[in-house]
């Protein structure tokens, strides 16, 4: 009924997300990836059931900056632990940390208030904790995950990307993408199949 009065988006042909090409072995996708890389596409990807050794280079992926950030997050952990311990055990300052809190200079068997050697285990543990949490969080964040919906999930063939098949995906938003030409290009890479994925 409403269809006749105002054309909705569902009437028009669905927008294309891109084309996927399916391969059977790591060797095939490696060769194919090198050719896609050299042909100038930018918005493309390989989807594989496990990390294929050397595929990063074949795709021309730049090294992630994750380790550098993790290093500084680890340092932040060391610093946090130092401040936490020296404030709570070796100072009588009152500071605002959500609520007003006051340090307490503990005198334990006549040891100095600022007993740095005794603070090192906790400094070490918080270094690891901060670094590990940021490794985990930033890896997924940089990957844009969690992303529970993705157009590729609607493709039946693509389900084998987590099992035993290797896919090359070229997205429609790539400036070099022209459906017929890109399809012909993908078919020239000798895949099992080339399919279009709707957005």
């Amino acid at each position, binding site marked *: 009924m409403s269809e006749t009065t105002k054309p909705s988006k569902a009437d028009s042909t669905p927008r294309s997300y891109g084309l996927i090409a399916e391969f059977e072995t790591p060797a095939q996708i490696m060769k194919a990836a090198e050719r896609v890389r050299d042909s100038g596409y930018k918005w493309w990807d390989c989807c594989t*059931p496990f990390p294929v050794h050397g595929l990063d280079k074949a795709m021309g992926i730049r090294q992630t900056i994750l380790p550098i950030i993790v290093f500084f997050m680890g340092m932040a952990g060391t610093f946090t632990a130092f401040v936490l311990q020296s404030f709570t055990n070796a100072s009588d300052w009152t500071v605002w940390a959500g609520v007003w809190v006051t340090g307490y200079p503990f005198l334990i068997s006549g040891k100095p208030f600022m007993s740095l050697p005794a603070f090192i285990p906790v400094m070490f543990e918080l270094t690891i904790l901060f670094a590990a949490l940021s490794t985990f969080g930033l890896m997924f964040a940089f990957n844009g995950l969690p992303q529970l919906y993705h157009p590729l999930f609607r493709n039946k063939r693509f389900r084998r990307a987590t099992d035993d098949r290797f896919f090359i995906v070229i997205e429609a938003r790539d400036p070099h993408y022209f459906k017929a030409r890109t399809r012909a290009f993908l078919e020239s890479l000798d895949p099992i199949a080339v399919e279009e994925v709707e957005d």
Partner: protein
Amino acid sequence: MTTMNVNTEVRSGETDNTQDVPGSRAPLVLNMDKFNQVTQQVCQVAEARRTPMAWYITFAIGLGLLSLLGFCIVYLIVTGVGVWGLNNPVMWAYDITNFVFWVGIGHAGTLISAILFLFRQKWRTGINRFAEAMTIFAVMCAGIFPGIHVGRVWVVYWLFPLPNQMEMWPQFRSPLLWDVFAVGTYFTVSLLFWFTGLVPDLATMRDRAKGKIQQIAYGAFALGWRGSNRHWHRYERAYLLLAALSTPLVLSVHSVVSFDFATSQLPGWHTTIFPPYFVAGAIFSGFAMVVTLAIPAREMFGLKNLITLRHLDNMNKVILLTGCMVGYAYAMEFFIAWYSGAIYEKFAFINRAFGQYWWAYFLMVSCNVITPQLFWFKAIRTSIPIMFALSLLVNVGMWFERFVIIVTSLANDFLPSSWDVFSPTWVDIGTFFGSFGLFLTMFMLFCRFLPMIAIAEVKAVMPEADPHFGDDHQGDDSDHGHADAKEAHA
């Protein structure tokens, strides 16, 4: 010549891949050459409509013991720590013994997942998933004991540096507080590491799931993983980082646990050998537990071609090595007690071996020093029933090691007038066996619903995963490796 059938022979139902043949790598995955076979084999355990009867029986035992644990803990809390057999000199006994025992068990999982990863030991992929799960469940069991032994459980938050009404803070010079941070960090990092490894496999389960509930459950935890190589790139980097962070962490955790004892002045505790000795003991007991769990699991779920005899053989070698280190530490402790000339130290050690707890000491030595020596023999390393029995003995021995260290030192310290004997009550024993219930329940749930072998990682170590698989390594111009070499020339 293929590597597959060079060094494998079937012997009493087990495929023997423990032979080393020069020039070829022993296969880590037996009788499979397709990636789909790995997916199929691991996923079918979690996807099976029918659960094996053995699973129900084990799970029921686990639940029974878990309820015993719950009962003992509630009884302890409503009555007070007097229900344990503690007395004036022996203020730590089963509680801390169990704590150290369980934390130690966990260490093998991290060793397998992190240290063996850094050493590029590819055989770890067959066992790392459930060894890491074991770590997490063991640390959960461990965490209970310090929590409940404080007596007033409702103020257990005093362990953490939280602003409170007394304006008091924890005392950061105490190793007991270092423990809170060490074990807390250890649990968190182990969980992150385990979950990171699980994500691609959960995506595999999601993509295979038939039912709506499975799709949603696996789908939610898979976080939308789609195997993108741009993701894999960061993932592998993050995995390496987590391994590199877990390696010093795991060494620190049992060192910090040993500081609980080593920084005190009690004879028998006040020794500098404790940190390395505890770490070696932890890995020793943990590997024994991995063997104990792996043998029934591979049997029950038919995973013999992924957890092969070679995996078990390798683990037994680690048990042998760490068992030797533990034996060396026992000997060195005794030597130093004599060599130091400290009379209390000397007494503490003679008392350990020949005093009122002599039976615990000899149980410990026979299980931890003599048992692993049998693993010098290959026939024993590759015999399933014998290694299962030996792994159980090692577990028993390592529990008694902690009991001996803790209780004998406390029971007979400097002043004979303050000596006493510890004997456990039924609540002590019930809580200890109950903690196995928690462990077993969690582990059985894990086996049933999650991929207990790292699917993606196993695929990646198969020879077929190498992009050069099938190449003859000569004169193929289209080969990209050679293309690189040409570029370098040009």
